């Protein structure tokens, strides 16, 4: 079920009412059933995959918890759990990628005709972090299977995150689950949901019309048009994914639950390092905690080059996490390369005056936007060949005279919506959170105003038709 569909409205209103009026185990059941319906709306049979994952990791965490005095047994259970979860991910997401690549080298492995369960990468990572946290004794194993199931498959974050951690979410779900969602939570949550909806169906989907038209016939377009489409795609994917995160966080908030932030105006970053602290925060922090730090610590004495190596490996895996395609791997490697360059160049301009620093800041942000957009050529292209063709066309055939806006009036809508997005992000959300706006005098009126403006824009300019989210494919 898509947040931006009419079906979701029909689904959410009764869910909220039942959730609001029940307590304890019944509230957990409500959440569980609602999450099952939400997920089954896509492909019902994949609920089984989800249940198997939940049962395996729930049992593994208990096994680990009970084996605290048997380190070997504890480790074996951990390894088995990690292998199980990774095997599910491998079967559905990476098997065909690896077999296709091996087959191109002369092997003849069978290509499986399977569809990737929606959001598999998200909920497997959430399960993995739980098992590892229990192993590292950061959190106790959850005894109640229903609570654990809700932790993994709670519908707002089930298909595209934010990837929550047990330490943050499980305490909120622990019995007695009997609080009454506050008016403040509801107002903040609802405004945030509508702001996310605005980002998705007004900004992202409007830009998508142009980007899709250009990228689907990339051979026919000039370098300038491809460059513009690429720059716009960076905004589209931001509006699409951060819009989804806003909606997820907003919905959870209306139910009185708090998710972690996933984006913090990333295009205002002044370095790629800062960009990754503000972009898809739940994934980058996951990989930092569960892959990067263990990698750095296990490589022996810490040095700049070992950090660079670990960074590059981590970002290559971030690329692979996105999808089983060389385009995503190159996307990740490019970011790894950017970060390594930043790391090695650190301190070169250390002695700049604060005036120079301030003057350079906007240009640094533009440079970040440019380099991130460059990497998105690989992200958006279907094949590496396509990405290289687009890159070469941009470099070799760039002339403003050949820039095509396709349809000027549609492009006018894109400009207006992008302007609205930048305006709101720069003046409002760069400085204020929804919570801090609510805390202002007449804060609830401001939030109602934000919700109202978003709804009016949605009605006037929204692609109201339930277009899917880009990150659902991961």
């Amino acid at each position, binding site marked *: 079920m898509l947040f931006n569909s009419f079906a979701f409205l029909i689904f959410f209103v009764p869910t909220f009412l039942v959730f609001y009026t029940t307590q304890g185990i019944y509230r957990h059941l409500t959440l569980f059933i609602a999450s099952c319906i939400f997920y089954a709306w896509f492909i019902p049979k994949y609920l089984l995959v989800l249940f198997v994952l939940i049962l395996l990791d729930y049992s593994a965490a208990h096994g680990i918890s009970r084996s605290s005095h048997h380190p070997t047994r504890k480790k074996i259970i951990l390894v088995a759990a990690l292998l199980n979860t990774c095997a599910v991910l491998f079967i559905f997401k990476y098997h065909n990628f690896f077999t296709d690549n091996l087959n191109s080298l002369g092997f003849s492995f069978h290509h499986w005709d399977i569809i990737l369960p929606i959001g598999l990468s998200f909920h497997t990572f959430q399960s993995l972090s739980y098992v590892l946290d229990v192993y590292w004794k950061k959190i106790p194993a959850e005894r109640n299977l229903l609570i654990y199931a809700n932790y993994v498959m709670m519908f707002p974050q089930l298909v595209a995150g934010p990837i929550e951690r047990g330490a943050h979410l499980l305490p909120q779900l622990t019995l007695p689950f009997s609080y009454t969602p506050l008016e403040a939570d509801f107002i903040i949550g609802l405004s945030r949901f509508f702001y996310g909806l605005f980002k998705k169906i007004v900004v992202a989907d409007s830009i998508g019309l142009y980007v899709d038209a250009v990228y689907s016939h990339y051979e026919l377009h000039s370098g300038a048009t491809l460059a513009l489409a690429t720059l716009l795609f960076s905004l589209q994917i931001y509006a699409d994914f951060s819009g989804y995160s806003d909606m997820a966080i907003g919905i959870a908030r209306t139910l009185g639950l708090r998710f972690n932030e996933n984006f913090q105006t990333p295009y205002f970053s002044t370095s790629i390092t800062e960009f990754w602290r503000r972009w898809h925060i739940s994934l980058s922090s996951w990989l930092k905690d569960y892959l990067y730090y263990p990698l750095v610590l296990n490589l022996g004495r810490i040095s700049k080059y070992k950090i660079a190596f670990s960074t590059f490996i981590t970002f290559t895996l971030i690329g692979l996490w996105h999808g089983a395609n060389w385009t995503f791997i190159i996307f990740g490697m490019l970011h790894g390369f950017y970060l390594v360059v930043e790391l090695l160049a650190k301190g070169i301009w250390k002695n700049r005056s604060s005036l120079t620093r301030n003057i350079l800041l906007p240009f640094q942000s533009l440079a970040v936007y440019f380099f991130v957009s460059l990497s998105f050529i690989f992200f958006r292209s279907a094949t590496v060949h396509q990405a290289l063709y687009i890159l070469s066309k941009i470099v070799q055939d760039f002339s403003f005279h050949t820039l095509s806006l396709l349809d000027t009036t549609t492009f006018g809508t894109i400009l207006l919506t992008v302007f609205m997005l930048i305006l709101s992000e720069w003046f409002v959300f760069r400085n204020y959170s929804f919570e801090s706006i609510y805390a202002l005098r007449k804060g609830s009126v401001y939030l109602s105003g934000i919700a109202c403006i978003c709804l*009016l824009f949605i009605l*006037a300019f929204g692609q*109201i038709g339930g277009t899917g989210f880009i990150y659902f494919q991961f």
Partner: protein
Amino acid sequence: MTKIFIHITFIFALVLVSDRVFTLLFMPIFNRTISGQSGGSINYVIQHPHEYNVLILGSSRAKNSIDPAALSFLGKGYNLGINGSKPLNALLVLDVLLSHHVDPQTLIVQADLFELGPDQKDDTIEQLKRMYPYDTPLVRSYVNTMGPAEIFKYSFGLYRFNRKILNITYNFLKRNSQGEETGFVGLPSSPEKLDTTPQFANYQYDPSSLNAQALLKIKELADAHHIRLIVVFPPTYQNVGYNSTEQKRLREDLFAHGITEVIDLSTVDATPSLKNEENWRDSFHLSAAGAERFSKILASLIKP
């Protein structure tokens, strides 16, 4: 819970009031917009209700192919072809025009076999949406069959402008009715080799489809207003998408329902002078030169 309910009510009341106020303020701008395909060309004809004897309805294949100047023996004509329009949209346009007392003597409706296949809900809504700003009983009757989501969205004036508020404002400010004399827009011929891959997957005629039914309703409306109806099937380059069996079935069905003036030029063999590539912009659209040839052929086949 009461506070939450009050909050939701407040937001939606604010949205509803803003929606109504904006629609009220914007509607006069829309009504005075007389250029562009977001209603402007329809408004132009509405503002000249007795000026045109011949109206041409259809898609871009009508707009770019039929020059009303070539049909001058029927009187003054206007080409109201709208990109992507199908017979359902043509029916709604005709309904709006007639309700504004536009009184043509001849109506030429361009149609294609590929428009008359089985219904697809999204496509039907796209056809309807173009006419949402006019909010006629006929539009409403179709919207009511499209499900609760569409009915809900239709209740908002802003939604009914179909994301075209900027287009309409631009056209209003431009105040330039493109091709206002005839509505016909000629295209340059293709600079590249034409692609002959069929663009549409389904070339089956479905007499129960909304578009096929709309053709019959156009006939009813035309008869009720004593308008002569001519249905035209234009050709495609190298017969892309042509299906002789289904085309014959379609023609026979139209005859059976009293649509007797059907000019079927759907196979390019019927118009040999159009076979040359220079007559085409792409496989489905004639160039200006091709359109002039096609319009003359059409004129020769229409009896005065």
